[in-house]
């Protein structure tokens, strides 16, 4: 089975802190994604990556950055956390190709106080 693991299920941080969300997949997938999930808004894409050291902005990249130094790991970074970044963050991975499904991690619920 494909496994996408997010390092934390729950995280509480203070405004202004630098926050790292880690995601690891074990299926040698080329593509990795970070989404933000908010009630009534569905899932919105923050960043995605097609390959090591490659990254592309999604629909809401402001306030976030990413890092993909190894194929299996994709990190989301909040440079200076703000209260409006309180949300559920989902990581996903997939093989290349439009028909290939995405496999999701369990999510990290981040609260910024």
């Amino acid at each position: 089975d494909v496994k996408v693991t997010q390092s934390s299920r729950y995280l509480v941080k203070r405004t202004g802190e630098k926050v790292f969300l880690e995601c690891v997949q074990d299926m040698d997938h080329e593509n990795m994604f970070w989404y933000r999930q908010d009630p009534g808004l569905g899932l919105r894409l923050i960043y995605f990556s097609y390959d090591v050291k490659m990254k592309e902005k999604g629909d809401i990249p402001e306030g976030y950055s990413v890092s993909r130094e190894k194929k299996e790991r994709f990190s989301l970074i909040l440079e200076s956390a703000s209260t409006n970044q309180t949300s559920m963050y989902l990581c996903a991975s997939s093989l290349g190709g439009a028909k290939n499904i995405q496999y999701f991690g369990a999510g990290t619920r981040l609260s910024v106080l």
Partner: protein
Amino acid sequence: AQTVTQSQPEMSVQEAETVTLSCTYDTSENNYYLFWYKQPPSRQMILVIRQEAYKQQNATENRFSVNFQKAAKSFSLKISDSQLGDTAMYFCAFMGTTSGTYKYIFGTGTRLKVLA
């Protein structure tokens, strides 16, 4: 730009009954893929069913089936013989094939509750 609309924020159904979740989308592409994903409470999102736009036949996976109307840009999910384990958030998603990027466009979701 592509959009995906799920007009039913919440639905409920009695156990063993049938329920249909609606999804409409907008695109100018001819080839694309449509998906339904399920997110159970506090659990990972998983694929329910996938439809390829060039296939006229509606996809079916056990109790789950879709009604794909390409001209109407409609992609509804039918759950037959509903079970308590079907209680979840359901997301409809679109993926185009012409942009060269593999980005989903998600709807806002429908929260389904199966009642005992």
